[in-house]
């Protein structure tokens, strides 16, 4: 075992997969320079062909990733910051998500897009999106959002080995986290949520940066005599409805914490699934703790209160228990 940060975990995943499989390569703006801290050392180890700096042309290089994947490469495309996927949106939706289907299985699309989410940092509306709900509406993509160094490494490795397109939403509010992780190769199957804390009174499903808050809330609730089961969703598509439904069957109550805007959120989708499939277990309203349907302002005074916090999750849980 050794201890790594979230970014080191990503770096290890990239390095190990590039060592293992020479078809794996990285491209994106300034990936060779380790601008954001996850690609350090890779250019020196693998060279500028496999750690390829691109022009600022997201549609072009994301689409080029798709073409390379179609002919047998396994690109990992670094989007630098999640909202920079938007200029490439058509390539992601029309080409990457649809080609396998459109050509009746002739095209494989083993491509990973890394989409670091930098919110809460005073970068304002154009730079602070957490756009996984936007992509949840697009069939053909797999979406993951690891919330710990351990998961970041294991899930990114699994994504790189998957034959389908995966967008890895990395939550950079978590870059301070450190985990012990195995020294040996490991992968985490996509599509499996993790029960992080067992409980019997209420289920809290959280994802991405909301997970530490949910865990803290579980802790705090325990102190007040409420036994919360905390589930880290980890994977958005496929969505592990079985784990969630089983938990709600046990607890009868559900809070979902999601750092994205509430409208069309993953929290809403989970609510809808449980309101349809788990209705008879429910003993209280399903409460979503998400970011309100407004843009992210620059001012820290304005920005800070918008996201899910431990306190908001605790309050929601108490309301559900009332």
């Amino acid at each position, binding site marked *: 075992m050794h201890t790594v940060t979230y970014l080191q975990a990503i770096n290890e995943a990239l390095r190990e997969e590039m060592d293992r499989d020479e078809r794996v*390569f990285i491209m994106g703006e300034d990936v060779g320079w380790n601008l954001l801290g996850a690609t350090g050392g890779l250019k020196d180890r693998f060279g500028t*062909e*496999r750690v390829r700096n*691109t*022009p600022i*042309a997201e*549609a*072009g*290089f*994301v*689409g*080029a*990733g*798709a*073409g*390379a*994947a*179609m*002919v*047998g*490469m396994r*690109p990992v495309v670094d989007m630098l910051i999640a909202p920079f996927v938007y200029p490439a949106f*058509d*390539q992601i939706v*029309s*080409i990457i998500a649809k*080609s*396998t*289907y*459109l*050509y*009746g*299985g*002739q*095209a*494989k*699309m*083993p491509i990973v897009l890394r989409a670091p989410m930098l919110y809460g940092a005073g970068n304002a509306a154009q730079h602070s999106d957490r756009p996984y709900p936007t992509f949840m509406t697009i*069939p*053909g993509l*797999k979406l993951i959002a690891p919330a710990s160094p351990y998961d970041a490494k294991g899930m990114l490795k699994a994504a790189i080995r*998957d*034959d*389908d397109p995966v967008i890895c939403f990395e939550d950079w509010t978590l870059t301070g986290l450190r985990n012990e992780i195995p020294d040996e190769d490991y992968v985490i199957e996509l*599509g499996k949520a993790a029960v992080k804390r067992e409980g019997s009174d209420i289920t809290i499903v959280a994802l991405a940066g909301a997970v530490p808050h949910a865990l803290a809330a579980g802790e705090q609730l325990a102190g007040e005599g409420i036994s919360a089961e905390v589930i880290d969703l980890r994977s958005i*598509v*496929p969505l592990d*409805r079985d784990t969630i439904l089983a938990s709600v069957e046990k607890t009868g109550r559900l809070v979902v914490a999601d750092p994205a805007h509430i409208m069309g959120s993953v929290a809403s989708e989970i609510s809808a699934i449980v309101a349809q499939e788990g209705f008879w277990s429910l003993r209280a309203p399903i409460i979503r703790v998400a970011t309100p349907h407004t843009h992210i302002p620059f001012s820290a005074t304005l920005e800070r209160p918008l996201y899910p916090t431990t306190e908001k999750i605790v309050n929601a849980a108490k309301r559900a228990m009332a």
Partner: protein
Amino acid sequence: MAITVSETDMLEMYRRMTRIRQFEETTQALLLKGELYGSFHTSSGQEASIVGSCMALRTDDYMVGTHRSHGHPIGKGAKIDRLLAELMGKETGINQGKGGSMHLSDFGVGSLGETSIVGSGLPVATGAALGSKMQGNDRVTLCFFGDGASSQGTFHESLNMASLWNLPVIYVCENNGFGELTPTHEAVSVPDIASRAAGYGMPGIVVDGQDVLAVYEVVSEAVRRARAGEGPTLVETKTFRFDNHSIGMPVETPGHAEMLVHWRGNRCPIDLFDRALKEFGCDEVTLREIDAQVADEVSAAVEFGRTSPEPPPEAAFTHLYTNPIRIDS
């Protein structure tokens, strides 16, 4: 001609051009009778541009195309039975009935799929070329796109990257004078799209898109360059579509009918090549025999499509992923 073409190759060109034309005429008739459906863009009139380009490629070279998707895979050597079954939405279709008229393909002959979002194929082709380069093989990729598509940002991004990275890719702009109903000069701010190549530091060549040998020569040189590691080329074939933008579309392309008289009468790529072949000494009988063989092929393909089964309902859910996930409705 600076390059020589064998008689066999010339006859193969003629055969593929004829195959495209007959495929289009037959399927168009089936569409108008209601046996086919969907948005239907034919390649009639553009056969020389397609076949001249494709014949410059090896079978294991890659090709990416457009919504006007029928001609390209045929030009690249696809068998037409599964293409026709695809137009019928049958299980035996090349895409198992999932792609239809705007998305023919045949990965078996390097046809990596036609894509109907205008301009979306250019980055894909660029990436396929990048893949080949990284794999160290000598395959090249050829990308067809229209004059209309040349206005998309993907054109710019792709050509810049291809030039920077010296990729083995040939961009073939089929300039048929219109993007849907809009004439090219109302959508493109310069007379020749090929002239934009200079802005990327790559050669840009205009060629008569009705002359299959001229196209073949220009694209062959581009392929040679690409394979030799000398980088990408932009080729613009000046051509014309013989049908309306899409078959069954209620609005006619303004001015098209008048222009068609000239193009069909004097600039039909098959007529022109027929005449050229005869000048090279090819006899009438050989050509008419090819016509007849192709006619048989097309009839057989229609029959194949007609007798093929519809896909089973579950097929709507397969191939969404290569490694499937559970899908709940």
